[in-house]
């Protein structure tokens, strides 16, 4: 496939650091869209603020770069106003679970037909390496120089508990899995979340002595465990491991159907 067909080539090369995995995720999204044969004009890519949220700037879809954490709020409006659009939200871990945390869980509860792709690099990269809700305990960040005292969020479990209809997690190293999950999520009716773990060598790897992008991707390669295998393992054995796989895949009525019912009832004047 030709990636350049989907890119705004005058905006390239992108600003992401060397070794950052965000470009790999963007490629995966483009491959999935290409495979599904969707027209560029039928897709809306919405983002908030952060490294990950630079994505729409480089892609030649209908794109919307919104305020910090509020990408889902804008996307909800878009989807309701024009249900024919394929609405994709790209968001970082801080954008989705800290500033936009409430939008995230309530969009999942509402089960509106949006695909959300969360780039989880454990840190606020763009704003200077501050601690994010997914920074693992004891890891260093610019606002946690002695180590992070908090326990991290598990984004996939959070989405599962909040009621999303499709939840999956992969790493950027496992491109095949990532393609499968993003492809499934795009086709799913209902709120679908794909969490992709991506290295941030500049803000996270450097402070925690985890090396460059290649070293961090090698860690992903060697420490990833499938969700089925992880079910039979103890918590000690899972420490420091990355659990990937499909967490939820269920069918549930989308919000748009229920909203249409409300419109019909209101218009009938009963």
């Amino acid at each position, binding site marked *: 496939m030709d990636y350049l067909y989907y890119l705004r080539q005058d905006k390239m090369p992108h600003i992401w650091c060397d*070794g950052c995995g965000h470009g790999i995720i963007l490629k995966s999204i483009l491959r999935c869209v290409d495979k599904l044969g969707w027209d560029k004009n039928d897709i809306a890519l919405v983002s908030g603020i952060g490294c990950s949220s630079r994505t729409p700037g480089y892609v030649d879809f209908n794109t919307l770069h919104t305020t910090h954490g509020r990408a889902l709020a804008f996307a909800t409006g878009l989807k309701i106003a024009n249900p024919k659009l394929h609405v994709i939200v790209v968001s970082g871990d801080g954008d989705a679970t800290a500033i936009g945390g409430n939008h995230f869980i309530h969009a999942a509860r509402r089960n509106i037909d949006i695909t959300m792709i969360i780039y989880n690099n454990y840190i606020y990269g763009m704003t200077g390496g501050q601690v994010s809700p997914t920074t693992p305990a004891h890891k260093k960040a610019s606002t946690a120089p002695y180590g992070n005292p908090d326990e991290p969020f598990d984004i996939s479990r959070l989405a599962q508990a909040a009621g999303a209809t499709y939840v999956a997690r992969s790493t950027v*190293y496992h491109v095949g899995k990532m393609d499968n999950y993003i492809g499934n999520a795009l086709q799913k009716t209902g709120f679908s979340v794909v969490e992709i773990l991506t290295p941030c060598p500049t803000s996270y790897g450097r402070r925690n002595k985890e090396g460059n992008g290649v070293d961090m991707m090698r860690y992903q390669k060697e420490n990833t465990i499938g969700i089925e295998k992880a079910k039979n393992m103890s918590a000690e054995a899972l420490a420091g491991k990355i659990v990937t796989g499909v967490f939820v895949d269920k069918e549930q009525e989308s919000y748009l159907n229920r909203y249409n019912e409300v419109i019909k009832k209101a218009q009938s004047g009963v």
Partner: protein
Amino acid sequence: MKKNVVIKINESWCKSCEICVSFCPKKVYDMGQFYPIVARPEECTGCKLCEKLCPDFAIQIIIPEETKKTK
């Protein structure tokens, strides 16, 4: 081994992260001073892993049509 696989590297977009050099299963690339060098093109099987893993859209793998049809 597939023949005639063309590996194109766009040096103006490459940020020399060395992901292609490190993860190519056949070790086709060597790192040059600034950019990867296609050192062993005859080893390339056309798996496109480097193309998929390149975050900077800098690698393009072109497999000629006749090899595509036999797949």
